[in-house]
Every structure is written in structure tokens, then in C-alpha cells.
């Protein structure tokens, strides 16, 4: 699934490690999400959207 995690993380001057600490997952997970190789769980997606003050639909772009 396409996403804007990397873009928003950089706009907030956060490293992958810092974002991982704030969300409560590993840095490797953040890296895999940013590279669109791993889709996060719903709670993680909500935490990310809340942190970036956006919605899940804005953050993750669903396409068939």
C-alpha cells in the first residue's frame, strides 16, 4: 500500500528511530512501511495518523 510516512516524518524532522520510539514499533518496521513492503496494523496506522495530525486515508493510499 502506498503511503506518505517518509514524507511526513521528514517534514517533522524525525529519524526512523525516533518515529519508531513514538509509535512503539521497531525501526525496521518503520523502514519496511516507508518502503511499502509492509502494511501496518490498524492500531499502528491510527497512531501514525494521530502523530502526524492527519487521517489514515490521507496517510495510506489504498488501491486495488
Amino acid at each position, binding site marked *: 500500500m502506498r503511503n506518505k510516512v517518509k514524507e511526513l516524518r521528514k517534514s517533522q524532522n524525525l529519524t526512523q528511530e525516533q518515529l519508531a*520510539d513514538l509509535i512503539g*514499533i*521497531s525501526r*525496521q*518496521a518503520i*523502514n*519496511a512501511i516507508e518502503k511499502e513492503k509492509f502494511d*501496518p496494523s490498524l492500531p*499502528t496506522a491510527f497512531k501514525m495518523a494521530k502523530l502526524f495530525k492527519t487521517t489514515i486515508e490521507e496517510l495510506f493510499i489504498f488501491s486495488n
Partner: protein
Amino acid sequence: MNTTNNKELIKKGTKNLALWTSAWLTMLLIVTIGPDVLWDNDLITLSGIVINLIIGIVMLISNKNLFDNYDEFQRKIQLESMAFTLGLSVIFGVLFEKMHSSGLIDLKPKIHLLIIFISITYIISLIINMRRYK
């Protein structure tokens, strides 16, 4: 959830699992060679088997505790590796047994060969999965 704290828990859990796995393997070795080399008493052998079983259960619990501390991504990697290992072990286990029963190979299908196969396959699939998601 604090990941710094979680990293510590994973580190501690991994050490714990390594310790119990070593203890289980050591006890297994003692129980295997003990009756032939160290003692000639069924009660000692039975006690060794019971201790080995108890250590095995503790090893399983520490593995579960470690798994509980993984995040969703680490769990996905572990589960995919386990599924791959299980599938390959069944396929090659049955194949090996059939090849032996039909006389194509002389090597007898023994449990230690399966354990070695499972260990190697699991390590390789973990490495492959970690690289896949990099």
C-alpha cells in the same frame, strides 16, 4: 509501548531463550549418551528424561515470552519463517523417509537429522525474510 524498553526485553528474552535451549540440548545429550556411558540405572534415565521435559517446557515458555515482545513486523518475519520451515520439513521429511524405504538411500531417517534440517532451514528463512523487507 516504549520501544527502548521493548528492545531491552527482546535482548533479555533472546538471552533467556539461548540459555534454556543450551540447557535443553545439554540435557538431551546427557540422556542420550548417559545410559551407555555414564550409568546403568533406569531410574536415573527416567529422571533425566523428566528433567529434559521440564527444561523443554521452560524453553517453550521463554520462546513465547520473547514472541510476545516482538512488534507486528518482527512477528510477521518470524511467522513466515516458521511456516516456510514447517512446510519444507514435512516435504523433505516424507521424501527422505520414502527414499529410504524404497532403498534409494542407505542413510536412516533419524530424528536428529530432522532437528538439524529444521534449525538450518529456520535460520536461512529468517535471513531471507529480513533481507526481503530491508
